[in-house]
């Protein structure tokens, strides 16, 4: 497979493959219906909409969409709609999940439900964002910017594996992964530095496979070869990273929001770690972002 360097390229790859089946939880609103129909009409997915049948049909009408293109499962109430959507996935009737008008809290509760959710024992739910930033020469796969506030070494290992898996699915067989800190020095009192050094060594021991992992690295060294040269960081990851692992949610969150709001970046984001990938777009996301997120989930499914 060719390595994907622009988010648009996901569409071409998906069109070549049999369609994955999307299940949308509480898809009552226009935004959700429109995003799903866009993805469906582009040949990226087939779709089941779980939600209030009347509301769905009304939204379809407003968006000038023929509701018969969807499989509609009637659930009047939001929490139950999320549960039903998850049940459909567990019954093998869907490959990826998408959030509709239901709140993130309820949506996540349905995914994380111990008995009927999407988690295998011991699995860690995390969040992967793939960013296309005009001033960077390729995609950047980053995490966790949304779910795990302050990951420990075990959670970081889980996040790292998801970042690497995402890179693989996007056609990058041996991604360069940077573990971010505020400096390249290993400062024993700074947990981000310590964990980064340990993860880097674990990867060189083959305990984390399928990637070159380097850290601690500061952001300038991660994305700018010149900085790496000046600071004498001799690593093939420096200045050419495919993935960035953030030490906490604040740094990752600020990074992606800065890039989307001020640097003209586009993004696609999904929740991973469960049995299937899940789209968790917020109402503030653009239609484009929603489409990219559905495409990414389909790539990962």
């Amino acid at each position: 497979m060719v390595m994907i360097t622009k988010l648009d390229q996901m569409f071409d790859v998906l069109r070549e493959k049999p369609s994955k089946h999307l299940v949308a939880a509480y898809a009552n609103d226009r935004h959700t219906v429109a995003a799903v129909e866009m993805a469906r009409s582009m040949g990226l997915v087939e779709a089941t909409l779980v939600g209030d049948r009347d509301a769905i049909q009304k939204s379809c009408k407003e968006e000038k969409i023929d509701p018969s293109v969807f499989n509609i499962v009637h659930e009047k109430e939001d929490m139950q709609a999320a549960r039903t959507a998850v049940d459909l996935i567990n019954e093998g009737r869907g490959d990826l999940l998408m959030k509709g008008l239901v709140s993130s809290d309820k949506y996540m509760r349905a995914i994380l439900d111990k008995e009927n959710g999407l988690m295998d024992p011991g699995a860690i739910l995390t969040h992967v964002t793939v960013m296309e930033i005009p001033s960077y020469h390729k995609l950047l796969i980053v995490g966790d910017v949304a779910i795990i506030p302050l990951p420990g070494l075990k959670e970081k290992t889980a996040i790292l594996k998801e970042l690497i898996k995402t890179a693989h699915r996007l056609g990058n067989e041996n991604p360069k992964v940077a573990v971010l800190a505020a400096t390249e020095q290993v400062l024993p009192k700074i947990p981000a530095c310590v964990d980064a050094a340990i993860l880097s060594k674990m990867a060189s021991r083959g305990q984390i496979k399928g990637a070159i992992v380097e850290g601690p690295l500061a952001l300038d060294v991660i994305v700018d070869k010149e900085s790496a040269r000046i600071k004498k960081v001799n690593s093939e990851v420096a200045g050419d990273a495919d993935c960035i692992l953030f030490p906490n949610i604040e740094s990752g969150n600020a990074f992606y929001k800065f890039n989307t709001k001020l640097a003209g970046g586009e993004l696609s984001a999904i929740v991973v770690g469960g049995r299937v990938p899940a789209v968790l777009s917020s109402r503030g996301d653009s239609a484009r972002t929603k489409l990219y997120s559905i495409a990414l989930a389909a790539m990962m499914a």
Partner: protein
Amino acid sequence: MADHLLKKKIRKTIAVAVAEDPNTMGALFRAVQAGFARAVFLGKAARIRELALEETGRDDWFILEDVPAEKEAVYRAMNMVREGEADVLMKGLVGTDLFLRAVLDKEKGLLPPDTVMSYVCAIQLPRYPKLLFVTDTAVLPYPDLKQKAAMLRYAVNMARRFGIGQPRVALIGASEKISENIHTSTDAALLCKMVERGQLPECVIDGPLDIFLACDPESVRIKGVHTPVNGEADILLFPTLEACNAFYKGLMLFGGGELAGLIQGTTKPVVVMSRSESPASKYYCVALSCLMAEENT
């Protein structure tokens, strides 16, 4: 080592505290005779003379200063080293506790403030193709990361004195795997990265590694572990005193090893030898102290 010292015309003065000690007499006599050491004995003069005659048949190969009180002898010897009248401080027939406490004395001792005291041994083995530097056999029970960093500096520095410009360092563990729950394995990972980042002296470093992966290229090949040390370690840095102590004593007992060891961190070399070491090892300790006392080698 002796040849090297003589070739470089190195001759150092060793001040022995409480020198009425048959344990060290033979080794010092040999060093003086070889020509790379001068001995200054501080202690009970009459007893020292008597012992020297008994052990070496002569009492004219050392400078003698009568300081009958133990503690005084230790401080007098240390002061000579501090003042530059002697180059090496050596423990004689005095308790290690009292002796080291004096060395650690904040005002009159030989350890600068905030300096880690440790111990490095150079071991010669019939079945290993080169010297093996091991640390810490004697001083730090459970070294933390900062202390391990100091141990690494000392061992690399000593290896360089032996002409090993780029020593291969193995950070010893029970396995090469890094596990969050085994903090010695994560410390090893951190030390490797600190070397890579230039925070510690340049060397070829890897760890955790078990002894097989550190010292046996065949094991490296069989296990298929990619390690730059490649089974050819010059330096073994152990995670605990017990492990290191048991390892070196095992080598002495079963591996036909001889050693030269030295306290590290002090401003001038300090020799503390165990009575149970062989005469050859004692002589090597003295030679090592003279080598390390030389500023420019």
